[in-house]
């Protein structure tokens, strides 16, 4: 392999890029737009669940109970209604996702020291939100029950009751449970995967389609020289994208970056080599720009988006799907980025992920080189 030939290919490819505004746009503008779009729009937080209340008791006790909901950031009481007909209408029209129904004898039952039934109706057509709303409502109800019980004991015995359990939940790494904090690092991985593969998927196919490849393979240029030369300028664009994404995470989304910045960029570099080589491999195999770009999109976007652990926890997936996630390179990069960003940990705990990411890169480079033939069919 001759360095001067690799360098010549890299320089030529760089000229192609700066002369074609579309490829620059795809390489730089699209990742930024995607990051903005998903960063702002994709929020998995459930808060301010619009709720209607039918308080048939209309007592001090029921108002105490409701204050627990009013004070919670997770519920927002939008309306007081009277009757199931109105509850039905509110949920049907999506005015509310949940309804809280307090029976007429609520206060009397509580004062008599008996269990008072409270009904929560949720809109199951949005089951994630429904699940979360039920969980939050349970917490509010539990704590109200406790308060009542404590007060009752105090009234009867005259002394304060200490609860046997002092339950103190605490969320590490993402204290405020903000979804953007784990979405943005994962998003960087997904976007880089898609853009990198897409960028290089066109390069070799374009030369075959334009007929410039026939000229090129009649020269002494070697396959690895051609492939590495083509990787180089796109690698630069990719690293620039990572820099942009990190800056946007820092200044636009306020995502805490607790780990090592050099490690972040180092891992991004390893990941990029693999993703760019995957694009080249696709280009080498298909020899058609249209087919290559479509294949690159299908092979990268959906798996990275759905199966990398970016959106859905891998541990919740069925076993066969979990096995598939192991062959998706974005999986390792997502977990590395989350680790570096939120946990501030380094290779001491993520050596396996880093190693597998490196292996992906090596395999892709080897495959792309192996599949490229300096011959016409």
């Amino acid at each position, binding site marked *: 392999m001759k360095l001067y030939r690799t360098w010549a290919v890299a320089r030529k490819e760089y000229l192609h890029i700066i002369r074609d505004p579309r490829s620059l746009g795809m390489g730089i503008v699209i990742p930024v737009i995607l990051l903005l779009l998903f960063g702002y729009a994709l929020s998995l937080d459930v808060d301010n669940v619009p709720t209607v209340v039918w308080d048939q008791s209309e007592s001090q006790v029921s108002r105490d109970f409701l204050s627990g909901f009013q004070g919670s950031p997770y519920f927002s009481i939008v309306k007081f209604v009277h009757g199931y007909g109105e509850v039905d209408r509110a949920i049907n029209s999506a005015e509310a996702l949940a309804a809280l129904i307090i029976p007429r004898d609520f206060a009397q039952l509580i004062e008599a020291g008996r269990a008072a039934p409270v009904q929560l109706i949720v809109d199951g057509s949005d089951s994630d939100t429904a699940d979360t709303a039920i969980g939050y409502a349970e917490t509010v109800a539990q704590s109200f029950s406790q308060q009542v019980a404590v007060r009752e004991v105090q009234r009867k015995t005259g002394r304060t009751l200490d609860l046997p359990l002092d339950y103190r939940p605490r969320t590490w790494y993402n204290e405020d449970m903000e979804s953007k904090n784990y979405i943005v690092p994962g998003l960087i991985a997904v976007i880089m995967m898609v853009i990198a593969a897409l960028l290089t998927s066109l390069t070799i196919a374009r030369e075959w389609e334009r007929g*410039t490849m026939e000229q090129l393979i009649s020269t002494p*240029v070697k396959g690895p020289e051609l492939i590495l030369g083509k990787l180089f300028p796109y690698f630069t664009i990719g690293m620039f994208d990572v820099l942009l994404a990190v800056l946007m995470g820092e200044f636009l989304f306020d995502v805490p970056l607790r780990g090592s910045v050099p490690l972040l960029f180092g891992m991004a570099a390893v990941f990029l080599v693999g993703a760019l080589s995957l694009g080249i491999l696709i280009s080498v195999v298909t020899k058609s720009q249209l087919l290559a770009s479509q294949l690159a999109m299908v092979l990268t976007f959906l798996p990275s988006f759905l199966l990398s652990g970016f959106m859905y926890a891998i541990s919740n997936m069925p076993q066969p799907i979990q096995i598939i996630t192991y062959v998706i390179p974005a999986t390792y990069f997502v977990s590395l980025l989350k680790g570096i960003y939120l946990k501030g940990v380094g290779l001491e705990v993520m050596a396996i992920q880093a190693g597998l990411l490196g292996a992906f890169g090596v395999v892709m480079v080897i495959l792309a080189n192996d599949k490229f033939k300096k011959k*016409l069919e």
Partner: protein
Amino acid sequence: MSAIRTSKLKKTFDEVVAVDDLTITVTEGEIFGLVGPDGAGKTTTMRLLTAIMEPTSGDAWVAGFHVVKEAEAIKERIGYMSQKFGLYPDLSVMENINFYADIYGVPRKGRSKRIDELLAFSNLTPFKQRLAGNLSGGMKQKLGLACALIHTPKVLFLDEPTNGVDPVSRRDFWRILYQLLREKVTIFVSTAYLDEAERCNRLGLIYKGQILALGTPDEVKQIMPGAILEIRVADSRKAYQLLKKELREESVGLFGERIHIVTRDPQKVESEAAKILQDAGIDASAPRPIEPSLEDVFVSVLAEQERSEQAR
């Protein structure tokens, strides 16, 4: 020493035989023309010899190296201009030339002198900075030639280099090729133009993958079966129709005011044709035997070939 030597070189695509047992030798320092109609196997032959396509069977050596076993050694020593413009339209003339200079590892020292020379003899000097995509067809071909010559190759392969190029540019192009011969470059050129074939030192007529005739243009003309009789006549169309109808055994062709009759028995046909025209009252020159042009040869050889295929 031979610059190119092939032995029973064969290439088939599925059922189709593109190049069929091709055995030719091209001597160092000559222009060899591969001449034939579209689809005859010219481009496939080019690709086999430039080692960018593997033959199905047979052997070939270019500049002393085997096209399969030593393909990369060949690529160091040849220049190739594919039929389709193979350069980058979004790169300028200089950027294209420099790219190929880098790829071939042309030393920095002496490179700019070589580039200046190439630009000067291809008249591209004023267009150094122009994007290749904005050049005219003729200039594109010259740029392709300059890129293929940047490393001073031993053998130059040109696949229909003047296809679709205007006559003036074609003449310029051939002027450049003759200059190259002085640099001891062997040129292997394919063409469908017979006036270009005439300019080659030696040529091979290829048809359906087979070489039908091989030699200098004069030698090739000798293989003409029979002779040609030329008649000059003002009302050539009427005379042509008449002769065609009366002389069923012979091949009659119309070229403007001239009619060519290809025949194996010139004495008999000469008097017959004169009599037919006289009887019809057509004023014409007496039929006289002429030297066949390459075009006549190829038309008759190809017609012969078709006839024998049909007979089989």
